[in-house]
């Protein structure tokens, strides 16, 4: 089954939103590269859940209002979105930049959350453990640094993007820079408020993540009160692609669906 694409409007802002499956709602917040291809990971989650994948404001074809200036603005926007979904609570999953947004949302208000899953989230900083400089790398370096298993990188590099794909990628890169350039991929205030996250939280990380080093998993685990940390061996920054089945299994076990 393929996901259905919707236009989702909250207040004056319309974003694209993909949905698949039925069941308890699970909202997935994408990373800096934009909405990923609909890999089996999503279909697997959609077996037992209604999976909703919005495209963040400023990314792809979603609206880009001038008032979205930082990750806090995006988090507040998603609190509005959650209020309007009609569900009492959702399982929130965020990857990388999306994990940062999810954490900013959760420290503000967990009322709409059933659980929180953070996959290699940005947002906090350990001095001496720098995130990779995705903005200075060439496209090839960036692609290679996304993966542990270079076969995935080779496959990605073999694909020449169409003009439309290249434009979308550039749009996403622009918005990612707006949100994450400085301070690079973190908010100095976030770490001291992580105790506000009151819902069960799963922190997933690829052991060989060259973008957000897996040393960060431990700090998230220490700061978020009800967190479980699970580091996936032989995996890079995109566990939902590189270890899709295992990642979906872990999330489904955590949120209480069958795998």
């Amino acid at each position, binding site marked *: 089954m393929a996901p259905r694409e919707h236009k989702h409007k909250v207040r004056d802002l319309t974003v694209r939103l993909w949905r698949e499956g039925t069941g308890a709602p699970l909202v997935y917040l994408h990373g800096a590269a934009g909405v990923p291809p609909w890999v089996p990971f999503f279909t697997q989650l959609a077996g037992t859940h209604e999976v909703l994948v919005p495209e963040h404001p400023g990314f792809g074809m979603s609206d880009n209002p001038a008032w979205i200036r930082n990750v806090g603005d995006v988090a507040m926007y998603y609190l509005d979105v959650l209020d309007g979904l009609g569900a009492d609570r959702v399982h929130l999953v965020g990857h990388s930049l999306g994990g940062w947004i999810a954490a900013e949302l959760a420290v503000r208000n967990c009322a709409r959350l059933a659980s929180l899953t953070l996959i290699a989230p940005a947002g906090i900083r350990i001095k001496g453990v720098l995130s990779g400089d995705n*903005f*200075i790398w060439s496209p090839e370096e960036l692609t290679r640094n996304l993966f542990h298993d270079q076969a995935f990188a080779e496959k990605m590099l073999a694909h020449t993007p169409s003009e439309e794909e*290249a434009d979308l990628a550039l749009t996403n890169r622009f918005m990612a820079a707006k949100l994450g350039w400085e301070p690079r991929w973190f908010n100095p205030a976030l770490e001291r408020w992580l105790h506000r996250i009151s819902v069960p939280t799963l922190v997933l990380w690829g052991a060989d993540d060259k973008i957000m080093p897996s040393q960060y998993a431990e700090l998230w685990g220490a700061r978020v009160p009800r967190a479980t940390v699970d580091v996936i061996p032989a995996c890079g920054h995109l566990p939902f692609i590189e270890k899709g089945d295992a990642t979906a299994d872990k999330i489904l076990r955590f949120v209480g669906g069958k795998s």
Partner: protein
Amino acid sequence: MRFTFFHLMPYRPLDMTERHKHRAGWVVLPNALYDPKNGADEYHSYIDQLAYAEQLGFDVIAVNEHHQTAYGLMPAPNLIASALIQRTSKAKLAIVGRALPLVNNPVNIAEEFAMLDNLSRGRIITGFVRGIGNEYHATGINPSFSHERFQEAHDLIVAAWTKPGPFPFEGEHYNLRYVNLWPRPYQQPHPPIWIPSMGSSETIKWAASPERKYTFLVTFSGRDLVARYLNLYRQQAQEFGYEASGDQLGWASPVYVADTDGRAKEEARAGMESLFNDFLAVPWEMLMPPGYTSLSSMKNTMRMRKSLGARKRHSLEELMESGTVVVGSPQTVRDELSRLRDATGANNLVTMLQFGVLDDVHTKRNMEMFAAEVMPHLRG
């Protein structure tokens, strides 16, 4: 014409083999490759050249700002300007420019320019730029807000120069309860402002607007682009309801003059090719960080770049062919420069007579030849 002698102050002793082991001569080039003894010699040679330009009759001597690079050793160009004030007495001193978005308190820039203006008794020309993309990697400033910060910093600096202080400044990026410049600038209402640019249409429109009428300089571009952008400024001025004067227009170009075309090429080759291929060349990701230009112009640039294919070294011949550099006998150089002057009506020529690895002896000869054999013919 009004002649400016402009210097970048490159680090010539750079080991080029080592240089090309790194992605650029900027930001990530290990500073172990900088030798302070050699570097100090470079500063002294270059300051001598700038001071000598006044003796040769240049109207303006000029410096600019770049960070963390062998391309130019002036992260703080006002320090050089301050030294030059003591070494000169009549030439104007242009700092073209300071990169406004890179600082967190633009009042510092307003203060330093005001100091230089007082120290020189009104010989300062200021320049405002955004800095090239590399500087956003060097400083960490978010390129997404580069345009906003430039506009706001400009407004703040001009207000600091012209409005009676103290006054509050309330912006998006800069918020100050007390703006109250001591010293105020020497020139009234404020020192001239030049806008060096690669030529974005937004910048041209902004610089040409009647309340500003800033001198617009096209930097390091081929002759067709220079003509296109300067004429765009003219048209823009006409749309605003006035005729742009030649003093509002100019372009910057590396120039080399020798007694024959052949000799000029031979002597200029290593310097010109190193400027463009070793010092200036940087990967796309450094030069064009996301947000540095608008999304639509970045998309256009990317398409253009794709159609150009892989980057290769520029030869002197290619650089001359496009008119990015001017190299030849006095007659050749006169002809080339006067053609572009006549096509644009521009009255400002910003020459770069030391470029890349060009040594002191050839730089001096080039300066003397230009001053004696080219300048008088173009004065008009």
